[in-house]
């Protein structure tokens, strides 16, 4: 019940994502108005140092990457997680050799390519787990940043391809429309893409 209330509150707040902080010095490196909101790249332009701005942009992206809707499928082990407390997925499923479950309990045995409201089952095209190399659960923004940049661990993607993946992939996009009772990731997929582009433009620096 409380999850549903939280969802309503979150949905109501989601629109207001681009308030700039008041122009008072000293300006915090990571401006925040609302923890459920996502700041646009423009809000970081006041950070003069390019590397520092880059790190701040990634920290803002981290609000999405570390959100339960994302980390629940970026797990280090056999099991996806679910819920905002990262409980083990129930019914009990295991990763399988192709990150898509095992016979009889494949991801797509139950998950469809869209959310089901009556049945309360989330869905998006190509529902599956991120490979173990892309673990984000219980990782720091620094570790996630390093992993995203590492072609041996990011599906051999260039940074531009990473940005496209974040901006366009429909399974990624599910995080913002997760369906019944689930809190969406902050901001929007488009905004995440803009932050990623800005981060790359400023040198793709990783937070410490």
């Amino acid at each position, binding site marked *: 019940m409380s999850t549903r209330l939280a969802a309503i509150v979150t949905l109501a707040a989601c629109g207001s994502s681009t308030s700039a902080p008041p122009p008072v010095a000293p300006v915090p490196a990571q401006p925040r108005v609302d923890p459920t909101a996502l700041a646009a790249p423009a809000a970081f332009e006041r950070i003069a140092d390019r590397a520092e701005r880059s790190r701040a942009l990634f920290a803002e992206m981290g609000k999405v990457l570390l959100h339960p809707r994302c980390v629940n499928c970026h797990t280090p082990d056999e099991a996806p997680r679910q819920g905002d407390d990262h409980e083990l997925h129930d019914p009990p499923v295991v990763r399988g050799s192709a990150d898509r479950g095992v016979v*009889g*309990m494949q991801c797509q045995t139950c998950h469809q390519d869209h959310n089901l409201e009556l*049945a309360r*089952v989330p869905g998006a095209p190509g529902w599956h787990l991120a490979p173990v190399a892309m673990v984000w659960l219980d990782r720091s923004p620094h570790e996630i940043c390093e992993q995203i940049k590492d072609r041996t661990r990011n599906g051999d993607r260039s940074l531009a391809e990473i940005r496209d993946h974040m901006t366009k992939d429909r399974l990624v996009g599910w995080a913002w429309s997760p369906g019944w009772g689930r809190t969406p990731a902050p901001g929007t997929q488009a905004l995440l893409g803009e932050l990623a582009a800005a981060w790359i433009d400023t040198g793709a620096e990783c937070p410490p």
Partner: protein
Amino acid sequence: MIRVTINGVERELDVDPEMPLLWVVRDVLGLTGTKYGCGEALCGACTIHLDGNPVRACVTPLHRAKGRAVTTIEGLSATGDHPLQRAWVDAGVPQCGYCQAGQIMTAAALLAANPAPTDDDIAQSMAGNICRCGTYVRIRTAIKTAAGMK
């Protein structure tokens, strides 16, 4: 109109494309062997095959089966003599029987993919099929018996 092959017979269905296959097979086609247990892909009683792969019919919309082949428990074998069905009857696996069609359909896909499953393989693949009567131990034994029969 959506064209689907069901138990080997091609049909054209003028039915809401979002209607879950469970209600298509039960209410539209009168194939009542596939059961409703939860409606939320949690219990497995509704398990059917879509192109040979188990899916939960209660959440699989008709349009996902467009142009594809659906198999229900009625279509698993022509005369009820799939090795699993024979093993189930010989070992007296069912108690109330309501979950067993779903159990058999999942087990059939398991054995088709893995003819010699370990207990762990069985547990992982069958974890989505609930039995409230508690027939799990006999199910596990019957799967291994059926595997030996092949």
